[in-house]
Structures are given as structure tokens and as C-alpha cells.
């Protein structure tokens, strides 16, 4: 039997799993695979409408320098998250806290950029009600922003739990699972940045 600690610091005893892998990690991968379908549908809807709805000057609306900076910020948050997972598994709990907090702050920075971007889009008349392209764009990026918000809250809760002894090298799996979610949010933005912003503004 494998022993580990729960987030509350209680000792838990787990029977060997049939896959040989931690079930919590398997569950997270299954969730991420299903979330791919969710974002796939939203991206497809945006592309389909962008091709069909005329007079949507995305190249005039999108601010590529700001979005590029946001994309860079989210990429760097993936680096700090990967380092937080490595620190947790290595038993370097102080470093893990620093990297977790850095990831949270980069996530908040990304959300602030998105809020600024949305505000200026509405000032330019590009709103969810303007046409189906606007609806699809705000639904897609809004849901991504919601995912980032959940990730920020999750990571901040792990940061706080680490001070109460809730996160130790023996239950570093909690940081790893949160890390998987965070990296997924990042790879989704990689696709949105390429397909919606770069390709969208290059051709529409």
C-alpha cells in the first residue's frame, strides 16, 4: 500500500491502482482530453463565422503587440509552473512557494491584459452583439479567461496550503495535477493566439 498525505496533512493509504498510475492524475488527463473538444468546438465556430461573415475588420480591431505580450506572459507562467512542480517533487518547498506565487502573478497579469483588450474592443465597436464573429470571439476568449481565473485561484490556494503543511514532497501530486491544468490553459492559448489572432488578423 502506498502512503501519502491529503491536502489537509492527513495520512492517506491508497491501494495499488489497476493502471499503475495515480488515479487523480489519470482523471485530470481525461478531463483535459474532454476540454480539448470544448475548445475545439469554440475555435471551429469562430473560424467558420470569420470566413462567412463579411465586414469584420479583425486586423483593425486586434492589437497584436498587446496580445503577443499576453501570450509571452502566459508562456512564461508555464515555465514557473513547471519549476514549481519540480521544486515540490525535489522537496524544495520554499522555492515551490516562490514559483507558485510567480505563476499566480503572471496569470493575473494575463487576465488584466485580457480585460484591457476587451475594454478597447468594445470602445472600437467590436462587442459580443455586433455579429456572430464577435459572439464567437468573446465566447472563446471569455471561456479561456474563465479557465485562467480558475487556475489562478487553484494555484493560490495551493500556495496558502503550503504554509499550513498541506503541500509536502509526499503529496506533490496535488501541485503536479494543478500544473497539468495550468499548462493545458497555456497550450489552448497557443492555438487561440495562432488561429484567432495571427491568422484572423492577417486575412480578415
Amino acid at each position: 500500500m502506498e502512503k501519502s498525505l491529503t491536502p489537509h496533512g492527513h495520512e492517506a493509504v491508497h491501494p495499488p491502482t489497476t493502471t499503475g498510475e495515480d488515479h487523480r492524475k489519470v482523471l485530470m488527463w481525461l478531463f483535459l482530453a474532454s476540454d480539448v473538444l470544448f475548445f475545439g468546438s469554440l475555435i471551429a465556430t469562430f473560424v467558420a463565422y470569420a470566413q462567412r461573415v463579411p465586414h469584420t475588420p479583425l486586423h483593425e480591431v486586434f492589437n497584436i503587440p498587446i496580445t503577443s505580450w499576453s501570450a509571452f506572459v502566459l508562456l512564461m507562467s508555464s515555465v514557473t509552473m513547471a519549476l514549481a512542480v519540480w521544486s515540490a517533487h525535489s522537496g524544495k518547498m520554499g522555492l515551490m512557494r516562490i514559483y507558485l506565487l510567480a505563476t499566480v502573478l503572471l496569470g493575473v497579469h494575463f487576465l488584466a491584459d485580457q480585460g484591457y483588450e476587451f475594454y478597447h474592443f468594445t470602445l472600437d465597436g467590436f462587442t459580443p452583439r455586433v455579429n456572430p464573429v464577435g459572439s464567437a470571439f468573446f465566447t472563446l476568449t471569455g471561456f479561456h479567461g474563465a479557465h485562467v481565473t480558475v487556475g489562478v485561484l487553484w494555484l493560490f490556494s495551493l500556495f496558502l496550503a503550503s504554509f499550513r503543511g498541506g503541500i509536502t514532497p509526499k503529496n506533490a501530486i496535488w501541485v503536479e495535477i494543478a500544473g497539468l491544468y495550468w499548462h493545458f490553459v497555456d497550450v489552448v492559448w497557443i492555438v487561440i493566439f495562432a488561429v484567432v489572432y495571427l491568422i484572423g488578423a492577417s486575412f480578415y
Partner: protein
Amino acid sequence: MAQRNETMEPTREVHKAGPKTCALVAVVLAVITAIEVGLFPGYPLYTEALRPVLVPLFLLLGAGKFALVASFYMHLKYDTPMFAGIFAFGMTVGASIVISVIQLFRHFHF
């Protein structure tokens, strides 16, 4: 009684991407992002000759970044192939949805 010693033994996961690998991947990701932005119309790397291949170029560069994050940061390179299989299944179905919806919109007037 739960042990709360912060210098507990490291877990078997330590062999996965360490600081050096993370930093190297971060540099590559930053360079690819810079190339992506540089290829955008009106930016330094863009020329009119590239316009016909701009979509495949952006998709290729994005796919490269996606693969790097998934392989090294999500540990698919180090973990059991089962996780890669689960994710690949989701990606395959997701890509099919994207292609199907775009094709449907092209052929039918909704």
C-alpha cells in the same frame, strides 16, 4: 500523525524536466513566439511572398510550441504513454470537430 517536515525525501518524479531543461524550453518558446509575431503582416519578417504560406507557417510554429509545452512541461515525454494516448485521442476528436464544422459552414448556408 502526519509528518510535516519540509525536508522530506524527494519523490521519484524528480528526474522529470529540471530547471535547466525548463529554461532551455522557455528560450525556444520565446524565440518561436518572436518569429510568429515577426511574420505578422507589417512586421519585420513578413514579405508578400510569404502570404500564401502564412497559414501553414503560423499553424506549424503554434504546433511546435504546443508540442514543447506538452512534452516537457506536462511531462508527456517522461510519463507513461497512456497519458499521451488519452490526450492524443482528445486532440484527434477535437481536430475532427474543427475540420468538420469549418467544412460544413463552407458547403451549407446556415
